[in-house]
């Protein structure tokens, strides 16, 4: 089956274009935009890890190594599309328009962190694995019903493809021909479980075959492959041609979360040969005279500033309002809940 789903690449590890048919589509603006966003989310990610170590935020799942998959796919969307991320996709969320302060808040155990900017269609990150896949199908179905051109993208990992919701979601997308992009990041592990114990099949892309969903396997660390393949799928969806499945093969550089110890289950040296997706784009930029030290320095200063002020805003964020707990359960809270709220606020007032 593997031979039916060869891994698509546009550029190699050294940053050489190996598929020249894209040469005209790749210009300086696009390259810099991709580089900018990948650098931005990496900076956020590294900052978050160090904050967790200092006890300034809670348990945190890093995405380092997956920047190309998250940025390439998110930049292939339009403003009004829908994004259904997991807990590891805040890179894609930030790229698509989540506020950085709220992203920090989320990982500091604040409900406000789930709330997207006004008008931005970003679903709260899925924590129970694969639950977002049918959601994305439903949102896409509703857009189709309204007659818009908007599409929905669902992010999910390799482990998620074992859940019923993955298969149900694919089947529904297929039966109802919804404009949905099923975007898989195959990072080789579901916590400690390696992909060869997760599935007997050699690829994830082949799982789309059973549902007659156009499926492709790409090098998820090649930001061009991710960007252009997602764009193709998006265009097909907008044109009313239904769902697509993309398997982006990537690598989680670090731990599953800050509470995880990968040395317990990963063989020493595994992944050492993976060229970091940002380095790969850097190679491309250097090969093509897009590497502009002044621009880089300016960008880095700007990004550092952005991350620092988002962090400051997170730390100065007003404390959570206890009444939110009660006010966001129902449209109209039943009398018992109102009573509970009163005695609760009374109790807090006394403490």
């Amino acid at each position: 089956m593997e031979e039916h789903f060869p891994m698509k690449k546009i550029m190699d590890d050294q940053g050489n274009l190996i598929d020249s048919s894209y040469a005209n589509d790749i210009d300086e603006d696009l390259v810099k935009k991709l580089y900018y966003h990948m650098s931005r989310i990496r900076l956020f990610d590294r900052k978050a890890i160090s904050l967790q170590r200092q006890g300034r935020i809670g348990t945190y799942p890093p995405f380092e190594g997956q920047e190309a998959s998250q940025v390439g796919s998110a930049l292939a969307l339009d403003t009004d599309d829908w994004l259904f991320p997991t807990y590891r996709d805040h890179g894609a969320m930030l790229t698509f328009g989540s506020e950085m302060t709220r992203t920090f808040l989320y990982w500091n155990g604040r409900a406000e962190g789930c709330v997207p900017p006004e008008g931005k269609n970003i679903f709260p990150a899925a924590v129970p694995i694969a639950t977002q896949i049918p959601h994305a199908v439903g949102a896409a179905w509703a857009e189709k019903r309204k007659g818009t051109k908007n599409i929905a993208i669902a992010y999910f990992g390799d482990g998620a493809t074992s859940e019923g919701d993955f298969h149900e979601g694919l089947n529904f997308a297929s039966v109802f021909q919804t404009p949905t992009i099923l975007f898989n990041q195959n990072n080789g592990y579901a916590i400690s479980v390696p992909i060869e114990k997760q599935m007997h099949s050699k690829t994830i892309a082949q799982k789309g075959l059973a549902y007659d969903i156009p499926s492709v396997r790409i090098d998820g660390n090649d930001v061009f492959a991710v960007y252009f393949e997602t764009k193709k799928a998006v265009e097909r969806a907008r044109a009313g041609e239904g769902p697509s499945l993309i398997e982006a093969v990537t690598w989680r550089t670090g731990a599953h979360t800050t509470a995880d110890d990968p040395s317990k289950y990963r063989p020493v040296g595994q992944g050492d040969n993976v060229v970091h997706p940002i380095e790969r784009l850097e190679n491309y930029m250097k090969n093509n005279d897009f590497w502009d030290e002044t621009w880089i320095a300016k960008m880095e200063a700007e990004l550092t500033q952005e991350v620092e002020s988002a962090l400051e805003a997170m730390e100065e964020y007003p404390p959570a309002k206890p009444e939110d707990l009660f006010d966001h359960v129902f449209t109209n809270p039943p009398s018992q809940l109102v009573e509970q709220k009163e005695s609760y606020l009374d109790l807090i007032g006394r403490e």
Partner: protein
Amino acid sequence: MAQMTMIQAITNALQTELKNDEDVLVFGEDVGQNGGVFRATEGLQEEFGEERVFDTPLAESGIIGMAVGMSTQGVRPVPEIQFFGFVFEAMDAVSGQAARFRYRSGGRWHAPITIRSPFGGGVHTPELHADSLEGLFAQQPGLKVVIPSGPYDAKGLLIQSIRDNDPVIFLEHMKLYRSFREEVPEEEYTLELGKAETKREGKDITLIAYGAMVHAALKAAEELEEENIQAEVIDLRTIAPIDVDTIIESVKKTSRAVVIQEAQRKAGIAASIVSEIQERAILHLEAPVLRVTAPDTVYPFSEAEEIWLPNHKDIVEKAKESINF
């Protein structure tokens, strides 16, 4: 005897039963080489091999559904649900299937499955990992629900749960995993399911709790003692079935009771205990039986956890309300 944390006592119980009975199989997400995300199965794959202790694909309904099927051939499955917040994925396999297997096969088959899972709040997990969903399972006929309050109980109850021929939901409060150590015998022992333990004797009021709330109740009892109120503290140990006899006997002595649960208030274990008491002992009561619970809101993000969870102060207050009624 050795000093063990609850997580160590659980590993020890699993090891004991894996040794005792070759039909015992331990499986779930990350329980193999990784030893479980809380390290409950640490070292077990190494000791018993991948045939007996193994990782499954990431699919809770598959894990429990497969356990039901295995039960037809004498296997004694001990699957893990990585966090109880994710048990919804397996709801049909547990409540729709495992719980009804005996009845639906006219008694021919049964499902001697022990589903272990970390639950409860107060340890600042990311959202949706912490919750108290035990009531959903206690309501299901055919299931036993066991909740130890410490290392000694955890070992004896887990061994007994594994040996039990009916499906058992064995819930391990995350806050208790490493919060204290206790003397735990190295050798095997069992504790009967459906039997409560009186943790502290008292004549003035009965405090009924389970899981982490047992410790809040004990602390409350100490505070009440300073005001000359002698509280009796009952640890239910299993919430399905409930040891009604122990409760009623105590209430007949004290005439007052407060029932404590970490879970939200409505349709809960505490409510059903209150009913049992008023149905069986109303003429012995000097005050309404009161409850201490979390409010009926969604389990909060970790920032609000501390104020949301019931604590010993809430128990002291309710106990006084009962005494002063």
